[in-house]
């Protein structure tokens, strides 16, 4: 089995348009959630979200590209560019033939669906642009990344709701670890912040009208975000041979299914995923210093997740730090694990643990060190990143400091 390292990272999200900007915001405990701005927002009950601001697609992409790129693809390509440039990796010859791109998204081109349904239903138009399908399809972003960077190996998109990115990165990890691919572009993106995208979530009645306060006793729901995170997962010797900077190592993963309920999380499913990732990476529970929580800020998730952590880690659960950065960037749904992986990289590489902001009241059912409100300096050797999706599909990644 090969060792797998991360040699490039890119992002765009409500906290920043790059990895350095995002990490700075996480260190400062800044909140990227604010009033949503888009057509018909006044008809929504939920009017806040972690929206990407000041992002001008014009100028980044040419006219033909603009007709083909939904916002989720624009986010993906922006993040992929940053990751590839940082990594310095180039894809040609055998490396190109065997390397691919695996990305997660829950909704794909949601605003393209939204805009065109409006056109045909609301405005009564009988004709839509010919590129509606290639623009909205869930694999559009992965395909454009493969075309842009000449990735000719296995490429596809994974859609497992809120765990999409973690499932995608777990598969990419598996491909590099097995030797099937020397490198993989992986991560995910989401762009659901349009009228239809938020209206659908409103229906579930799990959204907060004011803030995302994970683990806090007065938490009242999740807040949506948008954006992308993309990484270069690379075989260790391949990275060393070209002198690449290594951000951290990916050492294990596990995926489990609750096989129980379409929306309610299960402690056992979450616990089996965390324990599985530790076992896969050959990690003792006591070595884990940080967990980036799924931490949605809903009543159900946070207490279930904390109980699962207590089960897996026993007394060590009180020694480790667990934070939810969704309090800052919102819940990026299919892209969330990718942006949250950045908090793990910051903990491992920089020794800075991102906080859970908006934390106001301790909840006895979430009695762990949730790094409330302020980032903390600490040496972290191993970190986990949790994602637990609707549908009971769980994916946990284990990472190591290098």
């Amino acid at each position, binding site marked *: 089995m090969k060792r797998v390292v991360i040699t490039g990272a890119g992002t765009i999200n409500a906290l920043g348009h790059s990895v350095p900007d995002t990490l700075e915001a996480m260190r400062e405990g800044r909140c990227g959630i604010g009033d949503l701005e888009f057509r018909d927002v006044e008809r929504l009950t939920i009017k806040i979200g972690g929206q990407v601001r000041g992002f001008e697609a014009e100028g980044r992409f040419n006219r033909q590209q603009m*007709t083909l790129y939904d916002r989720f693809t624009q986010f993906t390509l922006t993040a992929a560019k940053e990751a590839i440039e940082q990594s310095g990796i180039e894809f040609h010859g055998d490396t190109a033939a065997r390397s691919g791109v695996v990305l997660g998204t829950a909704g794909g081109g949601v605003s393209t669906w939204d805009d065109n349904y409006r056109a045909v239903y609301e405005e009564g138009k009988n*004709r839509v*642009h*010919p*590129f509606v399908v290639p623009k909205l399809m869930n694999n559009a972003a992965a395909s454009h990344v493969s075309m842009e960077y000449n990735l000719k190996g296995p490429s596809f998109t994974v859609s497992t709701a809120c765990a999409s990115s973690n499932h995608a990165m777990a598969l990419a990890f598996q491909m590099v670890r097995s030797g099937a691919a020397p490198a993989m572009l992986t991560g995910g993106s989401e762009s659901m912040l349009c009228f239809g995208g938020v209206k659908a979530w409103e229906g579930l009645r799990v959204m907060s009208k004011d803030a995302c306060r994970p683990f806090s006793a007065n938490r009242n729901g999740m807040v949506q975000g948008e954006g992308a995170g993309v990484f270069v997962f690379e075989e260790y010797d391949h990275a060393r041979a070209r002198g690449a900077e290594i951000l951290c190592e990916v050492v294990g993963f596990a995926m489990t299914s609750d096989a129980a309920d379409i929306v309610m999380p299960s402690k056992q499913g979450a616990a089996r995923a965390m324990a599985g990732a530790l076992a896969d990476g050959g990690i003792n529970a006591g070595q884990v210093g940080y967990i980036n929580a799924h931490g949605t800020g809903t009543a159900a998730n946070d207490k279930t997740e904390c109980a699962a952590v207590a089960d897996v880690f026993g007394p060590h659960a009180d020694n480790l730090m667990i934070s939810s950065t969704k309090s800052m960037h919102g819940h990026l749904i299919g892209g969330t694990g990718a942006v949250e992986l950045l908090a793990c990289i910051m903990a491992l590489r920089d020794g800075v643990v991102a906080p859970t902001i908006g934390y106001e009241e301790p909840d006895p059912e979430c009695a762990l060190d949730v790094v409330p409100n302020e980032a903390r300096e600490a040496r972290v050797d191993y970190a986990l990143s949790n994602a637990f999706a609707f549908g009971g599909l769980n994916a946990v990644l284990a990472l190591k400091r290098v």
Partner: protein
Amino acid sequence: MSISDRVIAIIAEQAVLEPSDVTRESTLEDLGIDSLGLVESIFAIEEEFDISIPFNANEPASSDFDISNVGAIIDGIERLVSEQKG
């Protein structure tokens, strides 16, 4: 603008050329318009004239719409406009 000028303007924009560079004799291939660009042009022409063009990208040759060159396209559009809007 005449129908001819409006069609040429749309095709020129698709080809990223000046309208003066597009003549009746130009073929889509000459202008560098590929199959996706053709479908996009047909959409733009339908929008411009609010007409429906009988074109199937699977079998362009047997469609009831001649795209062998710009002149043929213009003639076809003029006929469709008079049929559908007349």
